[in-house]
């Protein structure tokens, strides 16, 4: 084979491999959509499960997931944004900063089930919150920190240096510069990171297994010390622990979960492209 032929064969096979890698994504989503859409109707979305999960809807699980996502946001956003400001604006190239960065890399790599163990050990047992929305939100919030910190830091670093220089030269203090000049411009990027992080948290099962998730609760939780149902755990429970479970309900639950998580991802993506288009520096 001449090298031009090699080139053709190589490009052809790489293209084929790329198709093999990407095509299943479309198939997976399409398949769940087709199989699950039949189960979705108003009753399914607005009523509690009945007849040992085999009938009725998944409303408590949907609401539980929304509550947990909100809780995650409350725990995660203040710490993550402040930490990102620290890394982007204050941290010098010191040993301490390198430790902080190493800590963030490792937080991102810790398996979600280990976060579950941590939440069980600290929040549920040691601090005595019990299996509760509070314990679950804290666990998910901490797990979401690294994603949000990294994206928020990138967004802050992307604000041009001259904005800061001008502000400082006009006599503004460091914090005034950050608050009035840097953060407003970094905000869209920060929000994108937050939405991405929350999307991931909403779909997680392992961290909530022992910290908050309930197998079946007909009533909605009334305080942050209550347990709640949640979509990912509900899907796990009905697909493995309920005998004779109708497949359509399982697919329907998977579809609802997928839609919630993917719509968050989509919103984040749209936000990012709009922001890039509007940026004029």
């Amino acid at each position: 084979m001449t090298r031009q032929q090699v080139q053709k064969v190589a490009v052809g096979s790489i293209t084929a491999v790329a198709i093999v890698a990407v095509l299943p994504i479309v198939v997976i989503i399409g398949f769940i959509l087709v199989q699950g859409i039949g189960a979705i109707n108003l009753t399914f979305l607005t009523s509690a499960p009945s007849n040992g999960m085999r009938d009725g809807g998944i409303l408590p699980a949907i609401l539980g997931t929304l509550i947990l996502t909100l809780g995650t946001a409350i725990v995660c956003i203040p710490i993550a944004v402040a930490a990102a400001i620290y890394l982007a604006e204050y941290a010098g190239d010191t040993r301490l900063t390198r430790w902080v960065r190493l800590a963030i890399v490792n937080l991102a790599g810790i398996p979600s089930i280990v976060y579950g163990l941590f939440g069980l050990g600290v929040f549920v047992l040691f601090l005595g919150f019990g299996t509760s929305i509070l314990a679950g939100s804290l666990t998910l919030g901490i797990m979401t920190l690294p994603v949000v910190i990294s994206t928020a830091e990138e967004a802050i670093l992307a604000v041009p240096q001259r904005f800061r220089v001008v502000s400082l030269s006009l006599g503004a203090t460091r914090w005034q510069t950050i608050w009035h000049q840097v953060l407003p411009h970094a905000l869209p990027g920060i929000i994108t990171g937050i939405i991405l992080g929350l999307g991931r948290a909403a779909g997680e099962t392992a961290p909530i297994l022992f910290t908050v998730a309930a197998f079946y609760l007909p009533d909605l939780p009334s305080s942050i010390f209550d347990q709640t149902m949640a979509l990912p755990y509900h899907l796990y429970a009905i697909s493995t622990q309920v005998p004779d479970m109708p497949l359509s309900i399982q697919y329907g639950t998977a579809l609802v979960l997928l839609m919630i998580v993917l719509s968050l991802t989509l919103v984040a993506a749209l936000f990012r492209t709009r922001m890039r288009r509007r940026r004029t520096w």
Partner: protein
Amino acid sequence: MTAPRRQLGIKLPTFLPRGWQEFVIERIIWLAGISTILIVALIFFFLIREGLPTFLDIPLRELFGSRWYPTEGHYGLMPLIVGSLVVTVGAVLIAVPLGLLTAIYLGEIAPQWQREILKPLIEILAGIPSIVLGFLGWVTLAPIIQQLGSPTGLTAFTGSLLLAYMALPTVISISEDALYAVPKEYRDSALALGATQWQTTIRVVLPAARSGLVIAVMLGIGRAIGETMAVLLVTGNAANIPEFGVGMFFEPIRTMTATIAAEMGEVAQGTLHYNVLFGIGIVLFMMTFALNSLASRFVGSQTARRRKGQL
């Protein structure tokens, strides 16, 4: 952006001198930064606190034994560690070539319009919850593998396939960054010397990007070894050590993560079984900590070399 959105200077309450207030804000921000170190330390501390009896009360020979029967007091971790490794090796063998070649396609071959379709698709894959993939593997993939000759279809290979797909976005995006970081001059020089695009990619771009590619592989391994829900559903959860060979991928196995997820709900706090599950958590924590610290070392040395102009 032409004009500042707001007037500079904020109205400060008269009872607080500005300097003092800002001092407090900056302390809080510093504290948030430091909190990440504290959280890692706290996670480690609590894993040790609950899991230490594993390594103190159980003789090491028993702990690294091959029998995991917690109800009869046998806490051999070997089947679980081997199970995790088998699934992970399988996943890496699938995900790395697939991910690397897809990254080459995206970075070197695909026209712009294809890139704009493919990249969001890969981001979507990263967003699919693992329980959804696990569920799908359980209801569709396992029956297919069963028809291929496995008794239940719940095998290490089934898990590897799912994990490979979950690790794929990580491998692709980091490999692509690594390829993108190779200076354009390298490609231009190779092409100017008469090399074909393929020769340029394989002999110039890939070697220049190798440390980034190593990072991609390591983080891919990290993702795969820590995955829980999908492997819990599709690997059969049999705590056996399969015989070494190609056949081991087609045996049911049980991973460390799945063991914690499946058994923690049923044990009483303070029992040895409870402690051992935290002990498994320690092993997992150590493995991913080592992988990620090593990977970030690589990132550090890579940026340093680029700064010195060696890359």
